[in-house]
């Protein structure tokens, strides 16, 4: 009886709000077809998938794909690269963005701040394809701008495109280049939210610029910093496919330091047609990544319930 009453209540509500429901319907259909219908396809990870036979006729192999990935060491390499890159992105990125936005907020001229900010935001809107070309223009051994500068000052340019050790630095710098403007805007919004009367009071009390930054701005930014950090950590297993794939592509001599989960999945599917291997990596990423997000979200909830995802 209880259940039926509940259903009846829902039906009545649905009838009353049918316009709002209908307004949400296209989006719901979109996510069903784009995100939910593919979910059962994760079964591929347990098959020896043959594209022509499809999901139902390919032979079942159990945990074989996973066993191979872990015993061959491939999985560990991908996890190490993906996680370490994200850690570097998060640390370097947030520190630079916070420092830059604090400095810019201290500057008297609004015009300088706004101009610098919008110029630095521009790289965020550039496709990864173009980013790879920009990098090539800078560090290509024969014609690169930086290569020429190095040679011009009597130095010896390294052949970076065959030097795996150089790429963690290059990729972190490129990522920084592309995301600094975005992060600055986020932090700047938080700085603007600081009550100006506190700053004034500090000024009246004779606090100098450095003291105000250390004692007021940075402590006040801490909540924003912690929340951004936690959300970033939630995505620690997710890589920026476009960036890595365009910079490195199929240059296998660099894979030891540049291959991340996304690039491996893409290549194993499209280059070697090994759908099952790719899917196994993807499944691992989804399941473990989901656990990490949930853990981070519950931490956010404890610190700042308003910002929690749900």
């Amino acid at each position, binding site marked *: 009886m209880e259940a039926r009453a509940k259903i009846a209540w829902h039906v009545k*509500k649905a009838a009353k*709000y049918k316009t*709002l*429901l209908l*307004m*949400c319907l296209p*989006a*719901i259909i*979109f*996510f069903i077809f*784009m*995100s*939910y219908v593919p979910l059962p*396809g994760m079964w*591929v990870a347990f098959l020896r998938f043959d*594209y022509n036979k499809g999901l139902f006729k390919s032979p079942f192999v159990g945990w074989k794909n996973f066993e191979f990935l872990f015993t061959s060491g491939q999985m560990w390499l991908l996890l190490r690269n993906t996680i370490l890159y994200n850690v570097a992105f998060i640390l370097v990125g947030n520190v630079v963005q916070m420092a*830059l936005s604090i*400095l*810019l907020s*201290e500057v*008297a001229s609004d015009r*300088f701040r706004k*101009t*610098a900010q*919008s110029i*630095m*935001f*521009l790289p965020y809107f*550039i496709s990864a*394809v173009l980013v*790879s*070309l920009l990098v*090539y*223009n800078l560090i290509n051994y024969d*014609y*690169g*701008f930086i290569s*020429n500068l190095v040679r011009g000052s009597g130095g010896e340019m390294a052949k970076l495109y065959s030097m795996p050790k150089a790429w963690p630095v290059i990729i972190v710098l490129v990522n920084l*280049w592309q995301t600094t*403007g975005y992060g600055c*805007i*986020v932090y700047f*919004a938080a700085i603007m939210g600081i009550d100006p009367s506190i700053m004034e009071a500090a*000024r009246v009390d*004779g606090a*100098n*610029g450095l003291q105000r*930054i250390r004692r007021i701005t940075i402590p006040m930014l801490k909540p*924003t910093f912690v929340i*951004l950090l936690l*959300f970033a950590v939630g995505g620690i297993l997710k890589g920026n*496919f*476009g960036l890595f794939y365009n910079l490195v592509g199929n240059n296998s001599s660099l894979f030891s330091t540049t291959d991340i989960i996304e690039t491996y999945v893409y290549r194993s599917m*499209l280059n070697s047609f090994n*759908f099952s291997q790719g*899917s196994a990596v*993807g499944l691992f990423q*989804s399941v473990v990544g989901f656990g990490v997000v949930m853990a981070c979200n519950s931490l956010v909830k404890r610190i700042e319930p308003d*910002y929690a*995802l749900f």
Partner: protein
Amino acid sequence: MKKNKIGLDRTDFIIRGVTYAIGSIGALACVIPFLLILASSFSSEDAIRRTGFTIWPADFSTYSYSLILRTPKQLVGAYIVTILLTLIGTAVGLFIVAMTGYALQRADFPFRNAIMFFIYFSSLFSAGLVPFYIVMTQAYHLRDSYLAILIPLLMNPWLIVLMKNFAKSVPHEITESGKIDGAGDFAIFTRLIVPMLTPALATIGLFIAIGYWNEWYYSSLFLTSNVEYRPLQYQLYRVINQIAALRNTVAGSVVTITNIPAETLKMATAVLATGPIILFYPFVQKYFVAGVTVGAVKG
């Protein structure tokens, strides 16, 4: 303490000096790479072989452009595909995102949390690329179809959350007054809410549009070589990565494969593919800033 006036002391000046220096260096670092591409596209291949990529062309040559424009079919096709995808995708996507975002922030809408969770969950737990690819090609049969690009880029959970946050800024009384006048929820949305949210809609529309303009990923997955006209950035991707694509770009011209100006051709294609974004950017960047400020944390 002698200083009773609120003035600037030495540390303030140092901080300002450092900021102006770092800000300028940062801005330069963001501009120089673009200059390199622009300058190289107007250089001759010989000049690049001699002096490398420079921020000012060593000589002035429009050879690479004239080579592309001699057989403009591919480029014009790419522009048309990209513009159509961007226009249609942005219109449809924006309409759906706006409608959904408004409905989901209505405090009186009983299903709003359930629906929001249903939408957001898709970004927390996804099937991954391989199942998505199999479904797109084997269930929806979208290989070689522009729909395989148009549909996935229509919307994402982040944009719906962003719209929801924007819509919250409209006082609930507006909706109430519409109800009193006997307007239905959809009429309230189109006649009362949309006019009040034009800057928000501009922001979201621009985010969707930039996604289409920069698209190369879904093209690389779903458009095989059977498709003649590719979105601009994917065309650029192919020109960068495949000498064969370069050959097609100048097909029918008198140039033989060995003396294709590979470097300058790449740069000219990059300028043609990305130029519109750079030109538009100064006029629309304030909308992007607004979007990031409102929707950032829950990104």
